[in-house]
């Protein structure tokens, strides 16, 4: 369905009125409760996959629904419906209302729409663009990857986009609409010789239109990058094992920040004191050179939002300033219970999910050091430039992230590529060991998805080149010096 004007989408297409919204919210608060909100969502999506130079899979879909939330103290009741008829929404509202057991006291305030940013204004969202143009992107990626090197034996390219139109209304008068485009393409390559094999992946996108892939981030750009990584893996040596100096390259290695500090600073974990960062506000958690922010207001970025999924405008939030822990990422519930400002980080996967504090684009600000000097300062270490995913145990603070492209640094020189290895560290102190921060901040290409409590949301990360004086590298190679316990 092509929808030219997204404004008042649910009013136009489902006949909703302000009066209906007030009725539903009143029903949600009929058993008491401090707050209620409705989240309407209409999502159209396309996905295409090319394998063996054939478009093997193409799919499109539409989903629509409404989630009703009722908050009473620390309790949340939630119900949703995929049928936007008044009876079904009222039924969901009454089901969610059962969480509250006090006599009704909250009334529904008049709706007020706050002015919001327009971070991703698109004349034509890619989901409505000509599909043959998207197929062409895949064909170009396939050709470029196969042409890169005869040892590239398998190429898979995929393209996915969506347009999510939302309306959030709350009993506090919140009224917010947004139309959120998202597009990305991915290329994965397998390289093979008789003796060895390797894989490489690359991709990018954002809240962008199709023309994004005709600028400098072309299908050829991603294809060559995936192919380069796969070929590089063919000659990779065993990675070392144990504690050593680690230099992270700029961009996607910012996943370190996402795992090591980002999750641990989500307000819900700190309200419940289940995070290793609980109670550390104002304390040193990083070296002087470390300033980390979460910023939902960057135009066109995958992790950006005009308003969060509770209708609150997003913002730039300083998490760590010159090594001192400054703040948490909060949503409505946590900000109310903790007496903090709402940082506009309340997000959810879909209308079927309860919102919670989540990251947007999380990155470290650029420092003063020259990236070349950083490498030269390392006698014996690892230079990691590309990563797969990561994971964190927020309670004990231990986090991992898996390097997919890394090199040995020997006497200040980058030498041999090494096999993929997991890096493991402790969130609350890893940044205290950051001794150099490069002047080359870069954000990732726009493919990150974060999972928490079973909910996936798009996010961004970024980091300049940094040096960590000591981090555990999970390789297999025996070290020439230093003993193993056998």
């Amino acid at each position, binding site marked *: 369905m092509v929808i030219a004007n997204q404004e008042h989408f649910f009013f136009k297409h489902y006949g909703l009125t302000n009066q209906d919204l007030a009725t539903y919210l009143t029903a949600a608060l009929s*058993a008491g409760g401090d707050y209620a909100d409705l989240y309407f969502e209409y999502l159209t999506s396309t*996905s295409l*996959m090319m394998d063996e130079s*054939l*478009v*093997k*899979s*193409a*799919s*499109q*879909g*539409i*989903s*629509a*629904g409404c989630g009703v939330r009722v908050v009473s103290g620390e*309790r*949340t009741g939630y*119900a*949703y*419906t995929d049928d936007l008829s008044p009876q079904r929404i009222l*039924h969901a509202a009454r089901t969610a209302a*059962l*969480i509250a*057991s006090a006599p009704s006291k909250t009334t529904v305030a008049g709706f007020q729409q706050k002015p919001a940013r327009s971070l991703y204004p698109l004349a034509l969202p890619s989901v409505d663009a000509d599909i*043959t143009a998207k*197929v062409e992107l895949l064909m170009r990626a396939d050709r470029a990857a196969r042409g890169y090197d005869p040892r590239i034996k*398998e190429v*898979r390219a995929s393209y996915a986009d969506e347009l999510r139109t939302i309306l959030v209304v709350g009993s506090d008068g919140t009224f917010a609409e947004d139309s959120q485009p998202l597009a990305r393409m991915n290329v994965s390559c397998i390289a*093979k010789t008789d003796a060895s094999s*390797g*894989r490489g992946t690359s991709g990018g996108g954002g809240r962008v239109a199709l023309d994004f892939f005709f600028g400098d981030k072309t299908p050829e750009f991603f294809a060559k990058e995936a192919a380069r990584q796969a070929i590089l893996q063919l000659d990779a040596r065993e*990675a070392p*094992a*144990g*504690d050593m100096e680690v230099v992270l390259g700029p961009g996607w290695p910012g996943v370190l920040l996402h795992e090591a500090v980002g999750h641990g600073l989500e307000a819900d974990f700190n309200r*419940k004191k*289940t995070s*290793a960062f609980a109670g550390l506000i104002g304390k040193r958690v990083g070296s002087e050179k470390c300033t980390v922010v979460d910023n939902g207001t960057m135009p066109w970025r995958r992790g950006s939002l005009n308003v969060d999924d509770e209708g609150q405008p997003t913002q730039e939030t300083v998490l760590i300033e010159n090594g001192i822990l400054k703040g948490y990422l909060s949503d409505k519930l946590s900000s109310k219970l903790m007496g903090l400002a709402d940082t506009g980080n309340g997000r959810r996967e879909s209308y*079927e999910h309860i919102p919670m504090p989540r990251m947007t684009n999380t990155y470290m600000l650029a420092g003063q050091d020259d990236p070349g000097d950083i490498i030269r300062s390392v006698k014996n270490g690892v230079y990691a430039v590309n990563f*797969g*995913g990561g*994971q964190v*145990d927020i*309670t*004990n603070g*231990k*986090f*991992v992230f898996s390097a997919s492209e890394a090199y040995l640094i020997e006497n200040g020189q980058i030498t041999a590529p090494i*096999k*993929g*290895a*997991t890096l493991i*560290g402790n969130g609350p102190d890893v940044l205290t060991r950051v001794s150099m921060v490069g002047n080359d901040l870069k954000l990732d290409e726009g493919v990150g998805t974060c999972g928490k409590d079973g909910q996936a949301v798009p996010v961004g990360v970024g980091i300049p080149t940094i040096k960590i004086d000591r981090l*555990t*590298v*999970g*390789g297999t190679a025996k070290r020439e010096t230093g003993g*193993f*316990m*056998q």
Partner: protein
Amino acid sequence: MTTTLETHTPKLETELQEIATDVVRRAMKGGATAAECVVREGDEFSTVVRLGQVETLKESGSRAIGVRVFFGQRAASTYSSDFSAAGIERMLKSALELAKICSEDPYAGIPEAGQLGSLQGDLDLYHEDVYSLPGAERIEYARRAEKAALDADPRIKNSEGGSFDAATGRNALANSHGFVGEYRRSYCSVAVVPIAQDANGGMQRDYWYSVARSLAKLDSAEQVGKEAARRTLRRLGARKVKTAHVPVVLDPMVANSMLGHIFEGVNGDSVYRGASFLAGKLGQKIAGTNVTVIDDGTMPGGFGTTPFDGEGIPTRRTLVIENGILKSYLLNTYTAKKLGLETTANASRGLAGTPGIGPGNYFLEPGTKTPNQIIAEIKDGLYVTEFLGHGANLVTGDYSRGASGMWIVNGELAYPVEEITVAGNLKDMFCNISEIASDLEFRGSIASPTIRIDGLTVGGE
């Protein structure tokens, strides 16, 4: 809570399979040469009780429909949650249009009529009792489980909560070769995530849960809470160790993931693309002679049991690895054709896209020793209770993950360890499974007993 929570989403009046059959008929009328339709309907209940207070309560139902159409050797799929005549018409129309931009793929297609069918008899997948408890008692189940953990030891001072979940779902599939099938499944679970704190303020969390298709088979709230407490408490005071090459014992919860890597390695989709280190290894020795791995989609009551797979083929039992020899890949119709083999009825289907490959009840055959006997034989080693991260490369077999657990000293679990890595190559690791314990228990569709693997690098200080 004094209110009751018995409100449920009313069921569709039309049987799902009638809708599916009708959509297939309409797709064929619209010019498709073959079509397949899936219809799903489900409801869910979940509650989290934290520190004795209800934190969240969620209850809802939803349904969705997906169709895959073929024009000769071109295929495309669409899905929708809109069941109105206009909504279904729109879904079909876009599928038929979308198919035109796809490539001719000589291997594309739905199964032959002769392959289709459904297991007969009661597979014990659905029990109405998962919703038999009144709402307040479901909350009480979660509350008791959390309380059992909190009461177990004064060092357990906090919690991410106790939870109780229940869900039922119906799945229907129809295709233009005459297949129509439908089944219902139910599920309930109780879980607790306690947090323990030691005198220095260091915190650890762990968890335990029970899951069943029938409420009658769910472990008691107290059992789950106590086990969660035991697993959490033993992590307190965890330290880092020096890098070492030692025997590594994986408890069933983490051995499970190792079996998952074998599954990904024999997944036909990775095999035909050469994206698996097990591609081309059929009939060869890929693991120790003590290793036998089975996939069985037919076990009554199993979490991986269904009467037919995602393409309408009756599920079956497949010997994947027998005494270390790779006997079969796991395949759907497409990957079987690509490899010149027969499907193993492992097609898994989402609402959209081409069918993937999923496990039935997939497990490593147990041995005879108890986990304690296996640990008792190790002088110096690592007992892993949790892996962190996803550091397995199925193309090369390279393996490196974060880990925590207990250090084994002279046959005993001596002290907790964390912030370490475990690394090796999957090709060697499967050959180096030196012990398999007797403690096989299904907590999902993939299950493994405790195993011991030799030759790994434990990375630390």
